[in-house]
């Protein structure tokens, strides 16, 4: 999750549900295959932002997500949808991939 649309250099947002962008990276054997940015539908939601963000991740086939913090509803939803979530702050997408050895 990020507030920026700068590919692998985007800094991971401190928030999950209301981050502006979802930077989706397809990684295979530590190699980035595809990278794209999607607007997070939770960003503009009146309520249930975290859940709207989770729904987008499910629809995009995402298996793991990184953000600075996750709300209780988002965590429940991610766990139930079988999406792994990692809490990292102040790093770029590239650094996050390195830290998680993805």
């Amino acid at each position: 999750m990020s507030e920026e649309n700068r590919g692998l250099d985007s800094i991971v947002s401190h928030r999950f549900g209301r981050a502006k962008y979802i930077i989706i990276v397809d990684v295979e054997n530590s190699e980035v295959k595809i990278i794209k940015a999607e607007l997070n539908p939770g960003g503009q939601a009146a309520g249930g932002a975290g859940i709207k963000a989770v729904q987008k991740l499910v629809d995009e086939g995402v298996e793991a997500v990184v953000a600075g913090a996750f709300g209780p509803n988002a965590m429940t939803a991610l766990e139930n949808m079988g999406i792994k979530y990692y809490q990292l702050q102040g790093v770029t997408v590239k650094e996050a991939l390195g830290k998680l050895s993805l």
Partner: protein
Amino acid sequence: MIISVTGGKGGTGKSFVATNLAVELAKKYSLVLADLDVEAPNDHILLGAKLQGEEQITVMFPFIDYSKCIKCGVCGRVCDTGAMLISRERLPYVIPRLCSGCSACYYACPAKAIISGKRVVGKSYITPVKIGEANFTLVTGMLNEGEEHVAPVVVRSKRRALSANADLYLIDTAAGTSNTVAAAMDKSRLAIAVTEPTPLGLHDLELILTVAEALGIREKWVVINKVGIGPHDEHVKLAKKMGAEVVAEIPYSRDVVETYVDGAPIVAARPDTEIAVTFKYIAQRVAEVTG
């Protein structure tokens, strides 16, 4: 006749005014006091009463019959509160805390795969109160801990209050100007806005009088509480501008604090104080409106 006691800002003395006015009015009228501050109901504490007659308040809760689900995802699309997630296998999954019980998914499902169940979100109470010569009924709405959806508890508790037979229904609303406060005030003949001599009290007074106006409440009164802690001439000007009458000014007084500590309404505990006399006056004015 319904009378609501409200005010916008929290801590101005809404419950203080509502409970004392209830005791005073109950000497003359059959009365129901409805405590619709469901997130923090406390009129019973101020009246020294023990809550009775508990009834559960439930809302609809969708259970999914997965054997009937055709994986169309319609339930997820119609859900306004984001309580319905659609998994990778296109199966719906409900997050109870977010569900408001609106039933949209139940009606939208083309496969009738949603079973209409129930979920408890709060409670209401009906408590007989006797203070001196005053007898009345207190109806209290209480939201369950951790629940987010206030509206069903306010609406059901109000309905329970109005179903009791009485001449007067006095409604104590929550702070703020949300739609749940508006729902509590709705259908009032008179709205009494309790404010205090602070900038925030003034600001929120304007908001709540605007809500009362929008609800078409004919008579709007202002009670300025804690008079003396700051200037209140702007409050008086604002009330006039908005077509509301400043019906009483209650001084900031140690008498109030002491009766608060004792857990007894001031009109009963200290009937000769200036403040108790002020409540008698407000009750008389209510009698003029009631006819």
